[in-house]
């Protein structure tokens, strides 16, 4: 029952899908009567363990306030606040901005974009290696029944093994630096990739193959001139989806061996309770992921002008 929407309507709704969560976040952050379960102490008064800048539960604050008041001591003062792990949008935005403009507090710590660049390299390596094996194997599985029967049952089995489970093994074999991280991304992507590409290949309209057969096409030419060009737009869409999955393996992969990349940045910042930085880094991953996908989608429309307009992803 999906109604066709005009492109303007689609764009507006698309923007709103981002604006709505942002509005909720703003409401929770800036409206003192929404949530705000804690008090941020501005003046400690005579309560000995209170300090300015400290966050306490509202009930604690209120009982201390009443106690101080009835004892005739100086009362503490504070403002309603959210827990430290939920920074307000402006804090995150500032963190985002300063992450790029200001040097980090620790001297030799890598900057956000350097951490991120390292992550991108790991992803790219993993995805490239996986595709170099997975795409040709998947196409062969989809096109040649014998190859399919010989490899797919094992691949079906292997894809149920969680990639991170191979972490320790990968470190033992490939050392503690980038090797095992790339390996985890390859293990996480490759097996799905073979099955998905094989399926896409099998979905190619068989009538096209028959048409090519009656024109005298055989074997290798059938593969190179009909099967591959025929599935290319769908294969491209598959690759976009698989690239998204590769990102989801990134954090786990980077925790293996010596923590590195954006994961290192996030864990460091969380350790010092710099939560705005943590959010900034997480959002950056999202922005990069979505951005790449949108660029690839636009590129796909360029590359495959014959692709049915209705099926565009």
């Amino acid at each position: 029952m999906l109604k066709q929407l005009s492109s303007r309507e689609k764009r507006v709704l698309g923007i709103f899908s981002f604006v709505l969560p942002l509005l909720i976040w703003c409401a929770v952050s800036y409206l003192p009567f929404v949530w705000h379960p804690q008090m941020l102490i501005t003046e400690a008064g005579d309560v000995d363990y209170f300090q300015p800048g400290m966050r306490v539960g509202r009930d604690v604050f209120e009982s201390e306030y009443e106690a101080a008041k009835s004892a005739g001591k100086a009362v503490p003062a504070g403002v309603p606040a959210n827990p430290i792990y939920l920074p307000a949008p402006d804090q995150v935005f500032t963190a985002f901005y300063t992450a790029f403009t200001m040097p980090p507090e620790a001297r030799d710590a890598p900057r956000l974009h350097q951490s991120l660049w390292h992550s991108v390299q790991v992803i790219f390596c993993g995805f490239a290696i996986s595709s170099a094996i997975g795409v040709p194997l998947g196409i062969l599985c989809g096109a040649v029944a014998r190859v399919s029967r010989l490899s797919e049952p094992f691949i079906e089995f292997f894809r149920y093994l969680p990639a991170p489970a191979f972490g320790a093994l990968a470190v033992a074999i490939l050392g503690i630096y980038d090797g095992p991280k790339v390996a985890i991304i390859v293990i996480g992507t490759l097996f799905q990739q073979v099955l998905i590409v094989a399926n896409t290949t099998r979905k190619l309209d068989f009538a096209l193959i028959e048409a090519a057969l009656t024109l005298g096409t055989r074997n290798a030419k059938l593969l190179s001139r009909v099967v591959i060009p025929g599935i290319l737009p769908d294969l491209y869409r598959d690759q976009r989806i698989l690239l998204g999955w590769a990102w989801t393996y990134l954090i786990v992969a980077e925790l293996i061996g010596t923590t590195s990349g954006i994961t290192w940045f996030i864990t460091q910042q969380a350790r010092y309770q710099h939560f705005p930085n943590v959010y900034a880094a997480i959002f950056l991953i999202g922005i990069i992921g979505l951005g790449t996908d949108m660029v690839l989608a636009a590129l796909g429309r360029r590359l495959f002008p014959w692709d049915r307009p209705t099926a565009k992803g």
Partner: protein
Amino acid sequence: MDQIVNAPKALPSYLDQTPAVRDRFGRLKNREVILRVDGLGKTFSSRQGTTVALRNISFQTHRREFLVIVGPSGCGKSTLIRILAGLDMQTGGQVLLEGKPVAGPGRDRGMVFQGYTLFPWLTVKKNVMFGLEVNGAGTSQAESEALQWLQLIGLEKFTEAYPHQLSGGMKQRVAIARALATQPRILLMDEPFGALDAQTRCRMQAHLLEIWRKIDVTIVFITHDLDEAIYLADRILVMKAHPGEVQELIEVPVPRPRDPDQFISDSFLATKARLEEMIYSAHGEAEEEEEAYPMVARLTAVGDDVE
């Protein structure tokens, strides 16, 4: 007076041929045999049991003949033409193309399917070039030949268009050009105009006859439209269902060149009457096996009648 004018005129027999027509068939049968089908049979076996789709089909076509196959749906027309194309294997009998048994598909038999099977990633020109290129022609040679074919089918303005930009009729014209470009001995067509509207179909028929006149190709054409069959065919192979067998091979007595005015000529109507007699009587029997249509319950108010 009135009575004489209005009285239904007795049609001649479809077997009556004018001397000119008889002469033509004489010449046709003198040409060499291109395709010979001998005792062809096809049985599908599945878990539900076996279906005899074709039984003991035998016929032959001569060079440059236009043979049309008609029959009720499910009588095995597609199965037959797919075996001729080499896309399916028969379970009995044999197919000889110029004396050589057919084994698998090949460029000597072009095929046009009912569904659109142009390669969507190739332009019109590249589609027509496809068969030439996979058979070893150089790009420039393939291109110049393709352009000639596109001229022949009147689509030279659309050489750079993609199939999805063409109408159904145009797509089938390109499909015909693509199949003919490899210069097959025989062109197999399985209800190629079945999905087109009546007007387009009419133009496509005239077009196909025009192409057939100009080049040395034998056509085997499947349809279930009797007018189309008579309009196009030299001879019509009538099949019946359950199991698929040849009922009769009719020599169409309508003189050539054909044009749509002949649809009401005596010889045309006589042939059509004969075809209807065969197909509908056989069809009646077949339908008894299938379930009768359920009566549609009345969904309107009593008195709200359209007839």
